[in-house]
Structure formats: structure tokens, C-alpha cells
């Protein structure tokens, strides 16, 4: 073998090794969480609320809290994110477009704890409630703020991939701009949906901003202006409790959260593969 072939092999070997190094921790996380978590899973675990002392406790209240808080986040993040994305792609021109696009990119990268402390100072300490201002509402706002730039970016990128010839075809037919934009969005619905699901799965797994807003709770949902439990807070609090059966429940909750996020990602794959027909 000559030198070039040897070098070729070496590079291939290094690349394969890098892939293994990257995938090994991921595989071991999934394996470990599944093995540890599946032991805790039972119908009882999924349908019962948290129980500090007994062994019959479950994650029903945490699931409910996560679902509601993420729903509020999406109710805030989806419309604002979509409109911002439409503005960036379809209305902004020249310098203002560059500025808004740059800001949106920066916002995606803001550490979630920073968003958390912002909402903490703007909402939590400003509006005292029975739980010192910690509320499900504040948690939804924090996660919603995180969704906005993700959805804005994916929406504007998706819209920019729609050929300009379709925009001109629509304009030339005398179709109003806002209807043209709807038509363009229909042409890249897969990309837009992906962005929404991506944002949802990203915030569903957040913990840091929730520590500063939702606080956590042993109770089921008590309304938007009370503290609330979420899956990630459940894992954080019970996983570090040192009590064996609670630690085991944290593993169970981790497994459920992992499956949920995995499920959303599979949904993204399905959405992007299928061509959505929309009239």
C-alpha cells in the first residue's frame, strides 16, 4: 500500500472513531434511562399524583403541568414567532431585515436561565401570589419567550426556500399580499411545522427557567396563578432527594420525558417527509 492509501484509511478510521465517540454517550443515555426508568413505569405511576411518603405516587401532576405550561408557551410563541418570521422573510428589506434577523439569531442562543431571571424579575417578584409570585403563568411566558426566536427563524428560513417565481405568480394574478403570504406558507408548511415542533420539544425539556418561575409543586395544577409541577422539576427535585424510591421515580419520569421528546422528533421526521397538500 502506498502512502496515500494509508492516509486515506487513517482519516476514515479517525472519522469513524469520532462518530462512535459522539454516539456512544447518546446511546448509553438512552440505554441507562430506559433500563433505570422502565422499572418505575406502571399505570399507577402515570395516573397518580406525586406522593411524598408512599410508594404509590406518580407523575400525573407533573405531566399535566408540563402539558399546560408548554401549551401556554406555544399559545404565546407560535403566533408571535410565525408573524415575526413572516416579517423577516416577506416584509423587512435592507438594513432592518439584517438587524431583525441578527437579533433573532442572537435570541435563539440566549441561555435559558437568562430568560428565566428576566421573567423572574418582570413577573414573579412584581406580582405576589400565595407562592411568592411563582406561577404557571410566569413559566409559560418564560418558555414562550424561548419559542419565539426558534419559530421566527425556522419560519423565515422556510419561506425563503419557496421559489420567488411563485410569489410573483401570485402577485401577478392580483392576489393581495397577505393572501400571497398564506399561499407561500402553505407551500412550506412542512418546514414551518418542523420549527413549531422543534421549539415545543426544546422548551418541554427546559428546567432552568422553570426553577425561577414555576417553582414546582406536589399538587396537581391549581390554576395559572399558582406554582406548578413539571416533568423536569420533578426529575430535578426527586433525583437529588436521596430517597431511593423518589430517585427511582425520577428515573421513570426521565424515561417518560425522553420518550415524549423522541416522539416529537419522530413526528418532525414524518411531517417533513410527507408532502402536505393544502389549498
Amino acid at each position, binding site marked *: 500500500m502506498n502512502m496515500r492509501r494509508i492516509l486515506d484509511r487513517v482519516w476514515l478510521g479517525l472519522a469513524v472513531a469520532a462518530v462512535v465517540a459522539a454516539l456512544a454517550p447518546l446511546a448509553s443515555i438512552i440505554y441507562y434511562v430506559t433500563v433505570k426508568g422502565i422499572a418505575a413505569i406502571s399505570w399507577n405511576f402515570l395516573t397518580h399524583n406525586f406522593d411524598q411518603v408512599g410508594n404509590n405516587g406518580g407523575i400525573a401532576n407533573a405531566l399535566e403541568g408540563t402539558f399546560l405550561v408548554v401549551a401556554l408557551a406555544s399559545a404565546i410563541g407560535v403566533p408571535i414567532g410565525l408573524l415575526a418570521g413572516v416579517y423577516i422573510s416577506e416584509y423587512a*428589506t*435592507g438594513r432592518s431585515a439584517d438587524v431583525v434577523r441578527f437579533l433573532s439569531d442572537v435570541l435563539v442562543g440566549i441561555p435559558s436561565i437568562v430568560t428565566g431571571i428576566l421573567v423572574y424579575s418582570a413577573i414573579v417578584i412584581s406580582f405576589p401570589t400565595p407562592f411568592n409570585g411563582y406561577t404557571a403563568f410566569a413559566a409559560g411566558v418564560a418558555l414562550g419567550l424561548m419559542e419565539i426566536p426558534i419559530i421566527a427563524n425556522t419560519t423565515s428560513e422556510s419561506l425563503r426556500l419557496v*421559489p420567488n*417565481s*411563485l*410569489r*410573483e*405568480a*401570485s*402577485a*401577478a*394574478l*392580483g*392576489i*393581495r399580499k397577505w*393572501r*400571497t403570504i398564506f*399561499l407561500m406558507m*402553505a*407551500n412550506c408548511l412542512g418546514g414551518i411545522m418542523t420549527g413549531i415542533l422543534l421549539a415545543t420539544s426544546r422548551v418541554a425539556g427546559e428546567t432552568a427557567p422553570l426553577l425561577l418561575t414555576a417553582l414546582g409543586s406536589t399538587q396537581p395544577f391549581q390554576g395559572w396563578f399558582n406554582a406548578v409541577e413539571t416533568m423536569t422539576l420533578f426529575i430535578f427535585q426527586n433525583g437529588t432527594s436521596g430517597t431511593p424510591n423518589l430517585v427511582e421515580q425520577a428515573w421513570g419520569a426521565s424515561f417518560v420525558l425522553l420518550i415524549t421528546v423522541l416522539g416529537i422528533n419522530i413526528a418532525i421526521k414524518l411531517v417533513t417527509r410527507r*408532502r*402536505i*397538500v*393544502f*389549498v
Partner: protein
Amino acid sequence: MYSEIEGISVKANSDSAPAVNTIPFDAERHPIVEVRNLNAWYGAQHVISDVSMKFKRNHVTAIIGPSGCGKSTLVRCINRLHELVPSSKLTGNVMLDGVDIYGKQIDVVDVRRRIGMVFQKPNPFPNMSIRDNVIAGWKLAGVRDKKRLDEIAKNALQQAFLWDEVRDKLPNSGASISGGQQQRLCIARALAVEPEVILMDEPCSALDPTATAKIEELISKLSENYTVIIVTHNMQQASRVADFTAFMYLGKLIEYDETPRMFENPKEELTERYITGKFG
């Protein structure tokens, strides 16, 4: 004003009289569209300089000229599509039936419904059926009456000589038919909103000769009811379909005349050199 191009020295005539021959010819009477002192820019690039011309009602006018001469931009100014390009600029007037379409009180949507357009590449909406493509202009303007929409679709497809070929596959995707059929679908889509003028920007350049022949036949028929302004780089096509032909070069209108006269006896040396294939 003109630079030396491929060894041809062109007289500088922009500062004195306009290059267009001033002998009145038939296009002067009954114009539907009139362009007055039109100038257009993309950024700092001056792509149309001081073009004035009239387009005769219910006739076909071809605009020919080498690539980059501004012929596409000229038609894009006539339905105000030019202004969609960021950094574009325009001065002058475009009159439709004597009304300036760039006037302050004019709704651009009305202009574009009266002046339809067919593009270089067929651009049916890929996420719509054949039927929905044809009626897109109505549906997206809020018309919901199914029976009326069906009638409009059938009528427009018949006018575009496409009905017999697609009548059994109206629910299929607009992108599922051949390129030539897609272009006639786009013509049907433009006709469906009942415009008075149809702009065509090199509508056959992406099509094979058979499909081209069909579109040309269609253009001749369309001039019975519509005013057609067609941009083409194909001089044979211009001589086949157009009643009048305009020759543009470097953003200026060099010559504009009845098609036979233009091709047999051009007045400008530049026109003659172009149509005899000496440059372009």
C-alpha cells in the same frame, strides 16, 4: 452614449432626438397601454432609459433585443411587478386606458387583475390541483361559489386549448403535467381573472418546439380578445406571432414598427445588425 460593442460603433443619439422613428404607424391609434418616459433601475443599475411607446389594443406586440437590454423589466413595469424587487426604482408613467397605473389613488391589485402575466418558466402552484391553479386568482380573492368557479376553470382551460388534455385530471397536482401543458395552465390561470392585457416574458424559452408551436398558435388566437405583449429573444417567434415589434438595446427603445417592415426594412443600423444576427 452607447459604448463600442463587438466592433460596432453606435451613434450617440440619446441626447438629441429619440431613436424611435417618428413616422406614425398603426400602433399609435387605439392604444390600451402607453409607456411615457419610463426609466427603471435595480439599485444603481439603470436598466430602462427613457422609453416611450404605445401598445395597440387587441394586437400582439413583441419586444426583442439581446439579453440584458431591459425588455423583461419593461413588461414588469407595465404590471408593477418591478417594484417587488428590493432596491428597484422607477420614474415616468404607464397609462392603462389613459389612467396612470402608478397614480397615488391606484390599487396595485386592480392593475394586476387587468394586466395578467405569463412567466419564462411555467410556475403553477405545486400544492394546488390543476383546477385550483386556474381559479387561484378568484379563490384567493375570496370567491367561494363552487359552480361559478368550475365554470371559470372550464372556460379558461378551453381558451388555453388545454381543456381536452386535462378534463379528466382536474384534481391532479398542477405540477404533474408536462412543461408545455404547465405553461398553458399558467396562461389559463392568467386568462381566468379576465384581464385586458397579457404580458408574456419569454413564455416559450423553457419549452420544446412542439409545445412552443402550440403556445404561438394560442397567442395568435388570444389577440382576438386580448392585448398581448410578448418578450422574446427569438426573432422568428416575433415575426410569426406579432403585429408590431419593438427592438430594445441597452435599456433604450431603438426601433418600433409593424413587424413585416421591421424585419424586411429596418430603419436603424443597429436593428438591422441585430436581426441579421451580427450581434446579440
